[in-house]
């Protein structure tokens, strides 16, 4: 039994199949990269896992339990955290309060939530901005806050949706370091990313989709040399 798996996930928006039969498995402690061109159904897959969308059909199984009928907040409690591609900072709250709100999913007293939040903020390297309002953060800070907030819910599986997009080279290195640190901490990760340098560096395996369907899966080297993947990204001329 895999640690986490999605099985033949399908999502129709009206007549459009955004995701059409995607299946993959993730083992504990691994980093799975999810790649594909724009509109290929990556974020929709994440939204089905975290129950923002109900799958039209298919199953999501986490530690042996079917979770695709549970509401979003219960999925978080089970141990699946996520970040948003279009960042969703709780703008008029400080960075610390953002993370405290997340920490309350694991503890009940204010003192415990405060401690857990501070620990998470230090882990994510945001201690220097903890008292700033979330809306005052630049994009790199907001992306990092997404991760810090998700980490404060103590996830066993973390879904990262383009957390490196829009970062400059220095910030990119920091982001990669943080993701590696999270994995060393024992958290399993599924990551959506367009920046090839990031996804090739950190993924153990890569799952490529296009038009809502799986086109390749394997190690970064295998996927990078896969004909269908090159075709999807660069067109038939290059394949």
């Amino acid at each position, binding site marked *: 039994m895999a640690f986490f798996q999605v099985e033949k996930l399908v999502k129709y928006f009206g007549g459009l199949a955004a995701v059409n039969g995607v299946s993959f498995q993730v083992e504990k402690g691994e980093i799975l990269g999810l790649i594909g061109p724009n509109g290929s159904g990556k974020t929709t897959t994440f939204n089905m896992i*975290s129950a923002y969308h109900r799958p039209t059909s298919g199953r999501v199984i986490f530690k042996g339990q079917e979770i695709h009928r549970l509401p979003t907040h219960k999925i978080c409690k089970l141990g699946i955290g996520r970040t948003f591609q279009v960042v969703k900072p709780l703008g008029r709250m400080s960075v610390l309060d953002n993370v405290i*709100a997340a920490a309350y999913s694991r503890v009940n007293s204010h003192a415990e939530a405060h401690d857990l939040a501070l620990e998470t903020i230090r882990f994510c390297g945001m201690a220097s901005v903890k008292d700033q309002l979330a809306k005052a953060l630049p994009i790199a800070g907001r992306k990092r806050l997404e991760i810090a907030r998700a980490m*404060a819910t103590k996830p066993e599986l973390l879904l990262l949706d383009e957390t490196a997009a829009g970062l400059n080279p220095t910030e990119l290195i920091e982001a990669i370091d943080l993701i590696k640190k999270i994995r060393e901490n024992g958290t399993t990760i599924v990551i959506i990313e367009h920046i090839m340098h990031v996804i090739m560096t950190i993924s153990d395996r890569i799952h490529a989709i296009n038009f809502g369907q799986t086109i390749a899966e394997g190690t970064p080297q295998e996927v990078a040399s896969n004909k269908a993947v090159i075709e999807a990204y660069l067109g038939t001329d290059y394949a």
Partner: protein
Amino acid sequence: MKKNLVPLVVLAALAVFPLVVADNYYRHLMILFLMWVVIGSAWNLIAGYTGQVSFGDAAFFGSGAYAAGLLSHHLQISAWWGLALGGFVAVAVGLPFGWICFRMRGAYFALATLALNEVLRHGAAIAEGFTGGMVGILIMPSFVSKVPYYYVALGMAVASMISIQWIVRAKPGYYFVSIREDQDAAESLGINTHFYKMLSLAIAAFWTGVAGSLYMNYMGFIDPDVVFSLHDISIMAILVGIVGGVGTVYGPMVGAFVMVTVQELFRSGFFGLLAFLGKATGSGAIEAIAKTITGAHVLGFGILVVVVILVLPNGIVGDWPKIRNAVFRTKTAA
């Protein structure tokens, strides 16, 4: 300690107020003020902290008032029992409403609260056999003096503010504000947004209902148009919240004070000043204004809201540093 100094001084001043001021008119105004502190704090919880703007506070206010009134009218029990019951009746109205309507977000939810308000107003007017319809309910006040009512209202204002502050500073408070800031993000953090919106609504409805019961006891008369009034209760609650400062601790208190004062300024024709001026100068124009201005408090509200939103978008308490700076600067300049 210094942080608590101002509230304690205000509380002490409020506690001795009826002992110092014997004039029933001012005591009456202060009772209204305290009642609005309760309603404003409740509105601030659901709209200011949780971000679910309610246009229908009168639904809860009226439910509380009718709970007390009907109890006394039908069962000949003292309407004071309604003070306890009224809050729970308002919660009983609010929970099924919230359970259904919290599926809607933003303006759609606000419109639903407006509908709830109107449904209850018409319902109370139509169900003549039970509520007395437009004739309303008249009960004998328990006290001739205003002092007992004043202290009940003061106790209520303090209890509502303390209880709401206590909740806002704990886990539910973080959850309420998270929901206000981004409901989808809140869900991803393990927050059962539907449940916490209901919790916030229930607490707000409870205190608004309690305020309604006090109104029944104090005024001795209610009818559907008075307690389910859109502009006298629901809109007034919003104004108290906005003028004082949305999502601030003491905003509703400042807002209640300003709004009751403004309402009374207009209602009394600036405390009879205009009528006096009219007589003294013999000017017909001022006398005419004095007669019509008493009905123009709604106009005053409108102007006040426009000014507040333009100049102090975060309310008097929310923009207090701004006000302090402006005053300070003009002083140094002069």
